[in-house]
């Protein structure tokens, strides 16, 4: 039997969908991590970087998404992303790398060891979830393609395919969606490329088949359905920053002391608490300060928000 990071039940091969949608309640004892290899699913190995907080349900994680390629309402991605073709999938890797080229997803994934990373996820809109991602560290991919010494930033692009992404039929954003990280942020072990959640392949609305997850930054930095990764020597243009630089900085680290101009970032609402859910305090760097605060030593985060 497969026992992953909990010992009491094994949803991935024996539990009917309906039952594991309610597993949030069962998971309050999620601290009981059992490290034995999984048989079913993707088999992401447990990680010391995972939080012990109880994850949100699959229903919550897959029905409350910002993915404007599929519409602006939170339910739109769940409704409209079903038709996205994610196989075949290629990622163009270029810029200041030793081995540029178009890499097939299967090729990219061969040889990487998948881990389960249960991370806090904090949206810039002041809501949050706990998500059990499955993925691998971005640094392993970068090492493989060879980052040249002059590279300082990593730039990402989402797929543009209006036939399958109805939101792209309108110029709501300047497609493609673009994001970027400083190279040291990209190399941090917390930064992963995710291919799954709840030990199964990523649902389309969550950014299938390959997305970035940077847990100490606001969610929009964690770009979905990636088709291009480019190493650059200059800070790349990023979508929300292009639209409104005053509201969305390049760094966009979770920071309770720097408000969004239209709402406070001091607190957040954890999805799943219902109509009377209480707000909770937002943590600096979303609680990942120990791992990432050094990256920003000496920087004025009120200016470089």
């Amino acid at each position, binding site marked *: 039997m497969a026992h992953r990071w909990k010992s009491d039940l094994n949803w991935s091969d024996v539990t009917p969908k309906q039952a594991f949608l309610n597993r949030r309640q069962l998971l309050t004892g999620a601290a009981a991590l059992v490290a034995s290899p999984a048989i079913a699913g993707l088999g992401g190995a447990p990680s010391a970087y995972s939080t012990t907080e109880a994850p949100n349900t699959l*229903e919550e994680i897959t029905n*409350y998404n910002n993915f404007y390629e599929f519409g602006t309402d939170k339910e739109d991605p769940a409704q409209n992303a079903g038709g996205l073709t994610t196989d075949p999938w290629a990622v163009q890797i270029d810029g200041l790398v030793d081995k540029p080229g178009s890499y097939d997803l299967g090729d990219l994934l061969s040889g990487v060891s998948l881990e389960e990373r249960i991370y806090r996820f904090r949206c810039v809109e002041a809501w949050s979830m706990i998500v059990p991602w499955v993925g691998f560290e971005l640094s392993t991919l970068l090492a493989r393609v060879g980052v040249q010494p002059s590279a300082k930033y990593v730039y990402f692009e989402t797929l543009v395919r209006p036939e399958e992404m109805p939101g792209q039929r309108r110029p709501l*954003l300047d497609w493609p969606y673009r994001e970027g990280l400083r190279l040291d942020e990209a190399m941090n072990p917390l930064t992963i490329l995710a291919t799954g959640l709840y030990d199964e392949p990523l649902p389309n609305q969550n950014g299938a088949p390959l997305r970035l997850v940077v847990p100490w930054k606001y969610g929009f930095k964690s770009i979905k359905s990636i088709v291009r990764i480019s190493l650059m020597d200059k800070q790349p243009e990023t979508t929300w920053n292009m639209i*409104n630089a005053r509201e969305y900085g390049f760094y966009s680290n979770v920071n309770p002391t720097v408000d969004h101009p*239209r709402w406070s970032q001091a607190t957040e609402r954890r999805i799943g608490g219902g*109509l009377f859910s*209480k707000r909770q305090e937002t943590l600096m760097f979303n609680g990942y300060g120990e791992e990432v605060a050094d990256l920003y030593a000496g920087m004025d985060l009120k200016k470089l928000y």
Partner: protein
Amino acid sequence: MPVSDRINATLRKVPAWPLYIVGPLPGLWVFWLGLTGGLGVEPIKALEHELGQFALKLLVVGLAITPLRRFAGLNLIKFRRAIGLLAFFYIVAHLAVWLFLDVQDGSLIWKDIVKRPYITIGMAAFVLMLPLALTSNNWSIRKLGPKWRQLHKLTYLAVPLGGIHFVMLVKGWQIEPLAYLFVILGLLALRFRFIQRRVAA
């Protein structure tokens, strides 16, 4: 007999009071949905949005009543008070969700009102509507006389503020809020005499 006359004749037999009973039902229904999981995984924002939308729709209907009579001969004046008061009911409910379910922290409320323009504007719209709601009764109309009509011109300020509030709170420029604002401004324009002459001609 023109269609409008026939409709007017029928409507004359329909009383306005059932609106006060039927009107709040959609609000109670969405509250119930929010309680029971029918508004998705984040019911607070969803409820706040639903109530704001009901309010705005009612305000638009309320603004349309005079032009409908002037240009289409349709007489719905009898229902206008109920529509206005229902809009106010939804704004109060919208505000209550914001206060008690969304923001929660009393110390943040004032900060939000002064710091966030879309809240400032929504609040301004609410404050302007308070005297209107309080004087939407026969006694006030009698008591205030011609001043009543002057006072109720505040609608022309309050409703577009509600529309602007909607435009400001969405990310980027989205079509729906702009469409509302466009309709509101159009209905207000029909109050200008020179435009009225053009439309009638």
